[in-house]
């Protein structure tokens, strides 16, 4: 797992290895992180900042944006939790 920006504040780390069962989906992984990091993580995940479009949460798998949480993870996948950083 790679945590960026506020996810880094919530989890207290930038990187960590997470073990999941064979055949686990992205949804399974997020659920496991809910349990591990609790309410603040859930709050961040579910409602980052009202109806903000530009700062919505992005999940990257190996650098690419994924919106389908049912995809199966493979050994060694790098999952990043971040936000749509559209500024600049």
């Amino acid at each position: 797992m790679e945590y960026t920006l506020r996810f880094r504040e919530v989890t207290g780390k930038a990187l960590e290895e997470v073990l999941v069962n064979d055949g686990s989906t992205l949804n399974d992984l997020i659920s496991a992180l809910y349990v591990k990091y609790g309410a603040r993580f859930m709050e961040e995940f579910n409602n980052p900042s009202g109806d903000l479009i530009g700062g919505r949460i992005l999940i990257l798998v190996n650098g690419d944006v994924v919106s389908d949480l049912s995809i199966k993870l493979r050994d060694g996948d790098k999952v990043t939790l971040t936000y749509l950083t559209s500024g600049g």
Partner: protein
Amino acid sequence: MCFGYRRRVLKVNLSSRTYSIDVLSDELIKGYIGGLGLAAKLFYDLVPPGVDPYSQENVVILSTGPVQGTLVPGSGRGIFASKSPLTNRFFISNFGGYLSRELKRAGYDAVVIAGRADRPVYIAVDDGRIEIRDASHLWGRTTYEAHKIITEELGDPKFQVASVGPAAENLVRFSAIVHPTPPACHAAGRGGIASVMASKKLKAIAVRGSREVEVHDGAAVHEFFKEIASKARKHPFLPTYGTTAVLGNVNRIGGLGTRNWQSEVFEGADKIDGPAIIPKYKVADMSCASCPMGCVKVTRVTDGKWAGTTVKGPEYETLYALGSMTGVDDFGAIARAARLCDDYGLDTISTGVVIAFAMEAYERGILTKEETEGLELKFGNGDAVVEMVERIAFRKGWLGNVLAEGVMRASKVIGCGSQHFAMHFKGLELAGHSPRAVKAWTLGYSVGFRGGSHHDARPHDIEYGNPVEVRAFTIDGKPELIRDTTLRVMIEESLITCRFFGGYYGIRTPSEVHAKILKMVTGIDFTVQELIRIAERIRNLIRVIEVRDGFSVEDDLNAPPPRVLYEPIPEGTSKGAYTAPKEFKHMVRKFYELMGWDFNTGIPRKEKLEELGLGHLVEDLRKLGRVK
């Protein structure tokens, strides 16, 4: 009664040292809103086609919209407009801070500066009192020094100052107008309008105003501020990291211009990304007028050779241009180079891109050590970047003088195939959003009136949230996306509201929220359809300005650098992405069709102009021989 506006345009003629005040008409307000729309209309009426940007006939316009001086969140923006010496086209540069609010409080919607003074001057606007004051003692001073001296001699630090620096005085084509708000500053950086100011011997404009701007429904504006502020303060990264947070993600998706766009993955990104630099170096949080978000960060270098350097940001675009583009991951060197750009008045984007271009030319053996006067101009050499900023600002040596012309002109002088990697669109150095990893940007930059600006269309606001297959490997829907975001930008730039509130106000097309803001502030009811029509009117007027100046569809088709059209990204998440010439041409054709422009000539169709109430422009073009 129409609220939000002052209905006064101040016109200053520096040649005759006189000024006059024009009334801002209902027709102009309802047809063009303000900001960009107002500037484009004033420019069309005042500047004849074909003039040299440095001639007396060119003007510099400082423009505001209806929301400046009000509580509307993100309204601390203003616009400088002129004909750009980089692109030879009508150009605007949008900036933050407090100057635009102060201008409205002083009683003006815009200032138009024409002619040329016989010696250096600055303009002081103090409510109704207008002075053209001697600036001989300020010539050669940095922007921060000019700000300090001017506020001291006017006797009040509340004067808001926009100043040019030595770079503009040396007619560096990408010099920036800097608006210091110590310890930070804001810049109308792009397009070299500062050098147009300096060509008029105008060092600065200083403004103080004392009267609040009246709005139609103050209670509604107040409620709106509270609603947006509660969300903006919870924004997941801008209040904490400012735009520095953008860099890491752009790198992750494989779209960060690196070593002059030879790659789009920077191995040093983790060292200069927001989470690395803000906790370590930040010394102050600041904001623009009426901003509850506060994305302005001030950092101070505490270690290494450049310890003690204090700088605003650096913003994402600066970290890209002076960092990944030059292969430099030493924050101290980037901060030092950025601070020098602010002091001397240089656009950090163009400065970084021309230095990166020279570095590639040097590494390829096109530039010799003799031509660099002994400088080891290799990627990753932070000291060389700092040195080149000095040389460019003062046009020192052969190379400094050549690069001060911008990358398009420099590549023509240097030759030897270097035009292949001169990274500009229409003469404007490329901003930090990839035209390969975000394919829509190849179209957006090419049909934008500014060229390589990340503000003409804004497809990345949407495309960064899409998978690589959508953003980098298909052209489906891209012309429609660019049409929509172009129209949205026309309204944002005319209101004028900050990009970072786009998440609340709309990021694709003109929206109900834009209409709501206009209603609360001005009292005028605009439907979204009417706003779309106004946006089209503004873009078509600018298109006619381009046509009047001799530009055609060929200039759009020839806009992308060869690297974008022929070199796939070599690594990273977006590996393999580029914009093939055939698909690019297809996108341009479709965009023209959507805009009502003739693909054979690039001219808006007569019926389109008539539909927008611009039918009279056809006659203007006929007189110039542009249409039969």
